[in-house]
């Protein structure tokens, strides 16, 4: 009897999952449930939202039937998408309904990295984190707390925690990805908000970017459109990518791209093919650049790059012939070398020599509300989002651990919002310049993304606290003390995103369905609740995300209904706005540099590095028996984030090591052989893919495979984790260096 009382009390009381519904029961007990299911009307709706299978936030249309997401399309109301979305975007429901997602907050019960956790309530998790953070703060100071995220709309909530604590050490993942380009643009144009008008370009030279495998739907479509209209494309890449297959492939020797670019400038000057008027009117420092490239002849560059002199001259002439509607792509993941940002600057300088700024088929400054306000004729289209005001944060007592912002050093160029994320593990291990003791990670996986997996794992072991918020038990979550389950993008609303291009554009991510796992929460709520627990409620003055959106939209006069009905807002009647399309001499009043000119010579770069115009630095090349290890993206996966999503895993579960056929023959390697890839300190197994599509001195693998969290059942241990082989090495401006690893390869 006692037993029964206990069980009933436990399970029918507060602990049960079912509840008797009044008015039902006996009356409907006879109803055949199958028939009831068939008779029930199907409720259908389309929710316009924004994808998060990668970082690009593409506008999507989510089809919901009876509360379940059944299909995702691109948002047909956005002409840049026209209903199109990539394989990853299409696979959203596979993530949403994956039984492997994290479902509850968890606290570690075993050794760090043992994978032993217990589930706790959110309140317990917040209390635990708050106590640990306070302890670190008291003993070491607020600066001992580091925060890293991928980069995204969650940052405004996530980073509020660190700012409130008084830590300067807030990092994005950008240093492992586009940061060198950002710096190249900042130092040349005074802003990084510079986009390219691919759809209208007549000639496209691509340096180390892969539009057709690293897919950004709007840009990929624009490039595809240009190609279908007869645009010529030349692709500089040591590997024969899908993009290279659609154009002219120039298998450039790794880390020598700058030589190619400087030789282009040399030819353009030598043959007087550049836009002199443009250079005169809009730029400063051209003479210093001309002097720098004077001896960078095609013959010299041919030696450096392995691309023939004739080809270099021809490409320069073809670019000039199509100018100003020709462009050189400024790159996406710009982590090739220590001074990658100088390559990005050089690319933009040659672009300016083509006069392709603010014209169709060239580069343009993003026309967001803030920019348009400065153009009287366009100011009416500018609807600036309202600020969501918070009180001032305490000023951090110390500078950043990575030296970001220090005048007179290259790090003065590093964007304060990004920092050099690769510095964190070094600082944890050495305690220099001062200790980092707590690390908060949001939707980022440093174990697989900061070079040297083993080093990151060793650093984690030295922390007092590691908290990871994610949707899966990522490699970093697995090694954490506290794991917080975020709901997926299909289960949350977020603030309005500014996705302006040639016209302003706002997009809203809108919740499509209730959270599948009831105890998962959106980032804004997690950090607001944690902040309140820590006594930082004043920094989260909004009630919820709807209140936040309302405050953003209030001064614009744009109704929230627009987003419900269309998913996005653009100003009615506004045509794509290029400042110079009608008048090639129109003043560039929008330029954000101090000189109000495009800075070919940059005082800031001169001060920081002593090289105000890009200077050629030869980098080491692989020796006999060595290969340069390079890596890249594949269309069906995003970085290290999607390899466990069921449908995407099914499409590609493993990567291989691409090796040139002649090089493989010398080593007796055949496709399918198991290889040992050795980078000296570390080795990794991999499967050989012998191909004609790669330079003989280079090997390649797709990134993000070989994951080490045993709780990513599908992706665990499948393929090569390139990140184990690539050292945690930082470039001058704090960018991670990922293309300077040499490996040896042998049969296992």
């Amino acid at each position, binding site marked *: 009897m006692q037993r029964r009382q206990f069980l009933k009390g436990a399970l029918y009381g507060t602990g049960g999952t079912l509840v008797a519904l009044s008015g039902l029961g006996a009356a409907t007990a006879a109803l055949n449930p199958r028939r009831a299911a068939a008779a029930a009307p199907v409720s259908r709706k389309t929710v316009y939202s924004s994808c998060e299978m990668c970082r690009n936030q593409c506008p999507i249309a989510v089809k919901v039937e009876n509360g379940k997401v059944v299909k995702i399309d691109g948002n047909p109301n956005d002409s840049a998408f026209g209903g199109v979305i990539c394989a990853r975007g299409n696979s959203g429901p596979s993530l949403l309904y994956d039984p492997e997602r994290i479902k509850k907050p968890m606290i570690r019960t075993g050794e760090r990295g043992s994978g032993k956790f217990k589930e706790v309530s959110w309140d317990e998790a917040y209390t635990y984190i708050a106590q640990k953070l306070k302890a670190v703060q008291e003993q070491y100071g607020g600066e001992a707390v580091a925060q890293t995220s991928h980069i995204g709309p969650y940052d405004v909530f996530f980073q509020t925690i660190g700012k409130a604590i008084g830590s300067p050490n807030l990092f994005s993942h950008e240093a492992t990805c586009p940061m060198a380009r950002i710096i190249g643009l900042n130092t040349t144009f005074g802003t990084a908000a510079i986009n390219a008008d691919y759809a209208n370009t007549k000639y496209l030279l691509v340096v180390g970017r892969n539009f057709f495998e690293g897919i950004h739907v709007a840009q990929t479509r624009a490039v595809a459109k240009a190609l279908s209209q007869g645009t010529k494309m030349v692709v500089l890449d040591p590997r024969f990518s899908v993009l290279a297959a659609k154009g002219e492939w120039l298998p450039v020797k790794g880390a020598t791209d700058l030589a190619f670019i400087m030789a282009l400038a040399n030819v353009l000057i030598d043959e007087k093919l550049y836009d002199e008027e443009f250079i005169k009117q809009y730029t400063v420092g051209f003479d210093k650049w001309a002097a720098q490239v004077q001896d960078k002849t095609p013959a010299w560059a041919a030696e450096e790059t392995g691309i023939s002199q004739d080809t270099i001259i021809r490409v320069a002439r073809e670019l000039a012939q199509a100018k100003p509607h020709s462009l050189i792509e400024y790159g996406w993941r710009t982590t090739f070398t220590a001074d990658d940002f100088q390559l990005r600057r050089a690319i933009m300088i040659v672009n300016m020599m083509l006069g392709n700024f603010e014209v169709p088929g060239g580069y343009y400054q993003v026309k967001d509300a803030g920019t348009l306000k400065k153009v009287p004729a366009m100011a009416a289209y500018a609807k600036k989002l309202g600020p969501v005001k918070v009180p001032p944060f305490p000023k951090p007592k110390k500078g950043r651990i990575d030296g970001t912002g220090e005048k007179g050093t290259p790090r003065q160029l590093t964007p304060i919002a990004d920092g050099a994320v690769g510095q964190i593990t070094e600082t944890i291990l050495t305690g220099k310049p001062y200790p980092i003791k707590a690390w908060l990670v949001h939707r980022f996986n440093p174990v697989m993304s900061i070079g040297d997996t083993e080093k990151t794992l060793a650093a984690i072991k030295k922390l007092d606290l590691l908290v990871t918020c994610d949707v899966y038990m990522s490699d970093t979550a697995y090694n954490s003390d506290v794991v917080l389950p975020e709901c997926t993008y299909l289960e949350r609303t977020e603030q309005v995103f500014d996705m302006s291009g040639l016209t302003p554009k706002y997009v809203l991510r809108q919740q499509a369905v209730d959270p599948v796992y009831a105890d998962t929460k959106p980032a804004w709520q997690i950090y607001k609740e944690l902040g309140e627990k820590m006594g930082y409620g004043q920094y989260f003055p909004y009630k919820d995300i709807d209140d936040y959106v309302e405050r953003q939209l209030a001064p614009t006069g744009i109704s929230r209904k627009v987003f419900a009905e269309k998913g996005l807002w653009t100003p009615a009647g506004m045509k794509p706005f290029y400042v110079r399309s009608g008048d090639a001499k129109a003043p560039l009043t929008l330029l954000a540099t101090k000189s109000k000119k495009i800075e070919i010579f940059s005082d800031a770069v001169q001060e920081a590095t002593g090289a105000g115009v890009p200077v050629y630095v030869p980098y080491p090349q692989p020796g006999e028996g060595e290969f340069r290890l390079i890596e890249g993206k594949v269309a069906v996966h995003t970085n290290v984030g999607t390899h466990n999503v069921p449908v995407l895993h099914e499409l590609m579960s493993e990567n291989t090591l691409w090796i040139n056929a002649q090089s493989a023959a010398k080593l007796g390697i055949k496709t399918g052989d198991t290889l040992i890839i050795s980078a000296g300190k570390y080795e990794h197994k991999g499967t050989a893919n012998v191909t*004609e599509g790669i330079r003989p001195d280079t090997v390649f693998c797709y990134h993000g495979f070989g994951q080490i969290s045993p709780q990513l059942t599908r992706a665990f241990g499948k393929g090569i984790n390139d990140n184990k082989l690539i050292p945690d090495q930082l470039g001058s401006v704090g960018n991670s260096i990922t293309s300077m690893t040499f490996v040896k390869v042998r049969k296992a």
Partner: protein
Amino acid sequence: MAKHYAMVIQLKKCLGCQACTVACKFENKVPDGQYRTKSPAIGPSGTYPNVKVFFEKQACQMCQDAPCVKVCPTTASHYNKDGLVLIDSHKCVGCKYCMTACPYDARFINKNTGTADKCTFCYDTRLTKGEKPACVTTCVGGALLFGDANDPQSEVARYMATHRTEVRKAQFGTRPSVHYDYEGVK
């Protein structure tokens, strides 16, 4: 005039990104591990540095003289009123004759239903509502054209009138409704 739905695949525009592959899976609730359409890489061919590769979307070719319809013992495989080859799953007994007969390897036994399955051009879920098949709508490279080939104003009819297209395995005399433009890839 009767409709004749046709698809044109411009291979030089296909990126092999598999957006169509995934879109089809969700549109048609295709079980885990099975596909109505796939776009494998053909190649690479050639010798470094002169290399080529392209992707070839493979699915039911919607033959007008379909071997699968001929061999079906229960008339489950049939032509519908718009001339499309479809399968009536209530009539299908899962004998697999059609799978053997299909020269394009386009059919499989659906793990959930136990009956033969293949591409339908999204007939029930989209075509009848005036929408194009899911693969066409989601194609990132813009490689897929779709429409009524009997309507001279349709995109497919105009394209085929001005470009050289081919059908796969013409020697079987199956008269497919899926046409391939290999220009720029071979």
